[in-house]
């Protein structure tokens, strides 16, 4: 039968005809036309000033002044060109490269920023403050989505990020107040996050309860529990229970003086530095260590991992606990850094935004990091713009991150590929 080899038509199976996916070009062109109408045609006639440094900073850079009209037209034309090119690519049977979408996003954001600031009553914005504030607001989001990465990569859906953040915030406030030590507060936050995770793990792994249900219910439970304790114990004696010490930013000498990026990277609280560290550590660990390989295997094909002697459910359990620790740490940011007291439901849905960042960032720690930064930016822009007196209603700016997420999951980032076994309990034969 070996003679069959020579005559077999080997070419048959390798013919690949691309199935065209028009979703991305369509979305790009729609947004580009919107940009043309708003940023370019609707551009204000004045100049826009972006300040790069404060007046008293050690290094003072001159502000960037641009014409809103010119910038608007440039951005709109670039966007249209990019969208057109994506059409050409898809028509030719190729996919739209990620970098094109990235460039597109940058120009869109730039165009939007110029237009919205230009239309404000005072067309002058401190870019450095805008960016630094974005990072600050993004810190708990980043911790939250890292928690999601840890859980989902090992196959457990974590809707309970919100609850983990809230419990972390609460525990940090209580422990910090009782001991007067912010570090004890941090530890307590980690512990509280893990506690929530432990419940998630026990119910979803041991009792095989639907993971989304457990997550949703846990959020309600934590909200009720912290709310109850807040209104009874904490309110009765705020001095003892709800006045945690504050972790102030630690500026690294010289480095923190670098304009724009100095304050972002080198003038953070402990929690902020821990955030950068966590992103790096989790990224490296996930893709370059034994633990990471096993984690990803368990999330993609648990049975395969099992047949190679990897303890699937133990792996998932520890990862969910780790995720809780990370999110709990993020929660401490609310009570130890942002404000120094706990408030009822003070996380205000940030856990859900973190979940969105996780998906937007395609279950990758770095992706989640940048997605969370984007959301932080949108939120911060909203408060900055309300200062400047913008024509866009505040509520629409507040909607922005959510709308962006909807666009993202509906197709801009393509079919994002979740870990194959995420949400599916592993029951050993």
């Amino acid at each position, binding site marked *: *039968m070996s*003679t069959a080899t020579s005559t077999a038509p080997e070419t048959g199976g390798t013919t690949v005809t691309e*199935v065209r996916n028009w979703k991305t070009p369509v979305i790009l062109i729609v947004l580009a036309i919107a940009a043309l109408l708003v940023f370019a045609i609707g551009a204000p006639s004045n100049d826009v000033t972006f300040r790069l440094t404060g007046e008293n900073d050690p290094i003072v850079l001159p502000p960037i002044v641009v014409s809103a009209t010119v910038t608007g037209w440039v951005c709109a034309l670039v966007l249209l060109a990019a969208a057109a090119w994506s059409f050409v690519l898809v028509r030719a049977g190729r996919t739209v490269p990620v970098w094109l979408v990235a460039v597109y996003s940058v120009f869109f954001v730039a165009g939007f920023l110029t237009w919205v600031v230009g239309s404000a009553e005072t067309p002058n914005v401190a870019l450095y403050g805008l960016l630094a504030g974005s990072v600050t607001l993004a810190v708990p989001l980043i911790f939250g989505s890292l928690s999601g990465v840890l859980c989902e990569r090992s196959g457990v859906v974590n809707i309970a990020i919100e609850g983990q953040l809230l419990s972390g915030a609460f525990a940090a406030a209580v422990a910090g107040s009782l001991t007067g030590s912010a570090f004890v507060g941090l530890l307590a936050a980690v512990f509280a996050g893990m506690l929530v995770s432990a419940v998630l793990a026990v119910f979803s792994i041991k009792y095989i309860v639907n993971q989304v249900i457990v997550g949703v219910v846990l959020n309600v439970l934590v909200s009720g529990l912290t709310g109850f304790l807040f209104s009874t114990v904490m309110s009765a004696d705020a001095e003892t229970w709800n006045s945690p010490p504050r972790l102030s930013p630690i500026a690294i000498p010289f480095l923190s003086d670098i304009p724009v990026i100095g304050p972002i990277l080198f003038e953070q609280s402990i929690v902020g530095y821990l955030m950068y560290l966590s992103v790096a550590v989790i990224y490296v660990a996930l893709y370059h260590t034994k633990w990471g*390989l096993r984690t990803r295997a368990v999330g993609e094909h648990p049975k395969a991992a099992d047949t190679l002697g990897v303890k699937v459910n133990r792996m998932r359990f520890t990862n969910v606990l780790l995720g809780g620790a990370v999110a709990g740490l993020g929660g401490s940011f609310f009570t130890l850094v942002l404000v120094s007291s706990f408030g009822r439901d003070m996380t205000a849905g940030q856990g859900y935004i973190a979940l969105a960042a996780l998906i937007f960032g395609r279950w990758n720690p770095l992706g989640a990091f940048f997605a969370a930064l984007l959301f932080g930016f949108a939120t911060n822009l909203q408060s900055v713009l309300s200062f400047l007196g913008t024509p866009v209603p505040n509520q629409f700016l507040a909607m922005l991150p959510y709308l962006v997420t909807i666009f993202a999951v509906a197709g801009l980032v393509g079919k994002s590929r979740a870990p194959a076994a995420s949400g599916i309990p592993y029951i050993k*034969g």
Partner: protein
Amino acid sequence: MKLELQGITKRFGSLVANDHIDLVVEPGQVHSLLGENGAGKSTLMNVLYGLYEPSEGRILVDGQPVSFSGPGDAMAAGIGMVHQHFMLVPVFTVAENVALGNEATKATGMLNLSQTRAKIKAISDQYGFDVDPDAIVEDLPVGVQQRVEIIKALVRDAEVLILDEPTAVLTPKETDELLAIMGQLKSDGKSIVFISHKLREVKQVSDLITVIRRGKVVGTADPDSSTTELASLMVGRAVSLTLDKAPAQPGEATFRITDLTVLAPNGQRVVDGISLEIRRGEILAVAGVQGNGQTELTEAVLGLQGHVSGSITLEGHELVGRSVKEIIRAGVGFVPEDRNVEGLVGPFSVAENLILNRYDQEPFAKGLGLKPAVIQQNAREKIAEFDVRTQSAQAAAGTLSGGNQQKVVMARELSRPLKLFIASQPTRGVDVGSIEFLHKRIVAERDGGTPVMIVSTELDEVLELADRIAVLYRGRLMGIVPGNTSRDVVGLMMAGMPAEEALGQEQEFGTEPGSGEL
């Protein structure tokens, strides 16, 4: 390494999957486990590999009793397994898959994949595998994926290799290559447990054959035993392999496929320019190794495939572009290849499953309302007619045995007037008694004047049912040959040889029609 199983019993509830099985695997031996689908072979191997705990009995390695609490223990004892359904993480590279569970790390704690790559390379060179350590597994052909599985076992210094139905997904050519590899492994002193229900392969490579039926060892044989002897041992009664079926009385061709091409979501041409026709009152069997476009072909007919070009006509009406519902209403009966996934809604009752594609039509519904009494009556009738063993019509379909589930699907599809009947793997995972019944129903449908298309990866089934045989290879039609064509010719076509050539080759070697494997 000498491996012994003594009195292994494995129960699932009241069901005994393995009943006091004894087995000895000597070093450097290929020991085949022969048995029908469902005889208990895989359960036994899962016990041996530490995936199941035995209810009774013990395992000895070199005379020492061992107990495996998981696959890790089994691997440590030198047992490696190539699973029937590959245990590979699709999105990982070959190196990552091989490293998993057995990771080499650098001093810094980082993964040391280069060490794994080197090992893969060494083994690849030794056995002539030609596997790229950095390829993503899901992009690799099935045959190569299987080699990755073998590498996984060898990297872990396996002395005993369990191969669970390794040829089910291979072409005859790939099968021959695998058998050669097995010989090479054996000469290196490895023991191999080869699980199969294909007599030809078993006879070809084994040193010793143990036959299992219904969870029990029913005998051992040496490879020189005759095919019929082995077959009757395996099946448990004198095998009558031929179905009692009258010659076909084909009428006009009412079903036509013209130049059909189906694209997978990734753009691959999974069905590539197929044209064929089926006449009334004839069975066309589509043969081929699993994954050569059969699934997509049948799904395209039913309107389940997205990117379809070409034409499919039934009694002159075009089907391409119409919805599944319209195609079903046009008189297409469809038995999907995986009843649990596509054929039945497990939590639904038998009664509901029996009207799964007619729930919104008279007499089962009027307007928006269902008519429970009619649905019940229908269920009672069909259960009696098809001899479905179920507690009641209200029992969830998921609780039935495989054979009875298949009868439910078959009953649903055959109990309305059809203009075309398609059945994919109609008897997969079905007990012998039901197979006979199902085959008879299929032939009866043919005799009623319906064009019938059967898709099966079991050559036996194809040869038994077919009036004509179409063979698919990589989405292409290798040709259509008469139903009594020899097994060897069909085998060559399954390996990608066009029909004329295969027929020509056969004449050259003068093989008798109908000889060969069981």
